[in-house]
């Protein structure tokens, strides 16, 4: 699967990530919200990563062949699980990101810890915010083009939205984005 980015979603650097894909129902809900934010608030930076997901870790690049082997093995032992969301949040500062907050359960922290130990060493230039103890699991709704001028619109659009979701997680994936293209490198069913 290969998708074109919008022009505003262009990245200067390539990035790869190990992510959890959402189920069909919540994938549709997130894509609906992306549509609302694009139509009503003019935000389309999120289309740079057009697969609703949350990331376990991110790097500039991975040893993809070895990652594939390890994920086949690791995912055979991890059972499907659920995550619970609660409201939306904003990473504030110079480059704000709007996201759906995930309440981290012991199960989720354990899965993250396990995936980190087994697969993160295969990454080059890992993003330190995804390290165990620093990780803040989230489903991105908008990034790159959130500003003080449109954040009011975003908040007004989302404040009455129901974000109390329980999302079944059955698959993880390796995704990458480079210039104007995003792609899913591999999908791994949780079979534990």
């Amino acid at each position, binding site marked *: 699967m290969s998708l074109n980015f919008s022009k505003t979603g262009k990245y200067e650097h390539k990035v790869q990530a190990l992510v959890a894909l959402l189920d069909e129902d919540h994938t549709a809900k997130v894509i609906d919200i992306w549509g609302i934010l694009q139509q009503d608030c003019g935000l389309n930076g999120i289309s740079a990563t057009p697969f609703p997901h949350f990331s376990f870790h991110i790097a500039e690049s991975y040893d993809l062949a070895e990652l594939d082997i390890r994920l086949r093995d690791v995912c055979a032992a991890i059972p499907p699980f659920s995550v*619970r969301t*609660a*409201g*939306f*949040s*904003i*990473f*504030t*500062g*110079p480059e*704000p990101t709007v996201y759906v*907050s995930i*309440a*981290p*359960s*012991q199960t989720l*922290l354990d899965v993250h810890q396990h995936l980190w130990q087994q697969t993160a060493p295969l990454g080059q230039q890992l993003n330190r915010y995804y390290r*165990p*103890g*620093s*990780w*803040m699991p989230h489903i991105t709704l908008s990034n790159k083009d*959130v*500003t*003080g001028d449109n*954040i*009011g*619109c*975003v*908040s*007004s659009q*989302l*404040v*009455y*939205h*129901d*974000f109390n979701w329980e999302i079944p997680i059955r698959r993880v994936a390796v995704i990458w984005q480079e210039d104007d293209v995003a792609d899913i490198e591999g999908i791994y069913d949780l079979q534990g």
Partner: protein
Amino acid sequence: MTGQLPNTGWADLQVQALVALLDEQYTTRVKDIWSLLFVECGLNAVNIAPYPHFSFHGAERYDLQEMDARLTELTRTIPPFTIRTTGLGMFTGKNPVVFMPIRLDKTLLDIHQTLWARTSSLGLRLNEHYRPGMWVPHITLAIHDVTPENIDCVARKLIDRNLTWEIPILKVAMVCIEDGVADIEGVYPLQG
């Protein structure tokens, strides 16, 4: 130390909670944000409980005498710890809440689990949102008077701020709100 609810519409509120109090520096910083949101956006109902904090659990009421005995014993074994906030969050719906999300790491998860296991059974009509697995730890910035009309003001005032704070937690407390008046029932330094 007591606080009076400014909005008479909430004057019959009865709630009690086991909370972590912030240190002096971050108590001042949160109060500065409360003042900003009052002056710029007209929000002041957060002052019902004028002690910047995050809650471990809340209930309509607790067996306060037994709670005192258990907390006196428990806090001898829990060492002071540090929390990290990650930006700005909003619980959406009919009664929106604006807050600072707290990253839920293993230390905080374990402390919450211990406090829940040892003290939540002393509460009547517990708030289910604080149960392990559902808990989203947060420091409230605005509650009871957030509306679609003022939410954009809140977001615009805070979007550029650095809200990534590391806050030392040195004590927990029982906070009681009765007929719109808040009071700290007991303070327990962490001595583990």
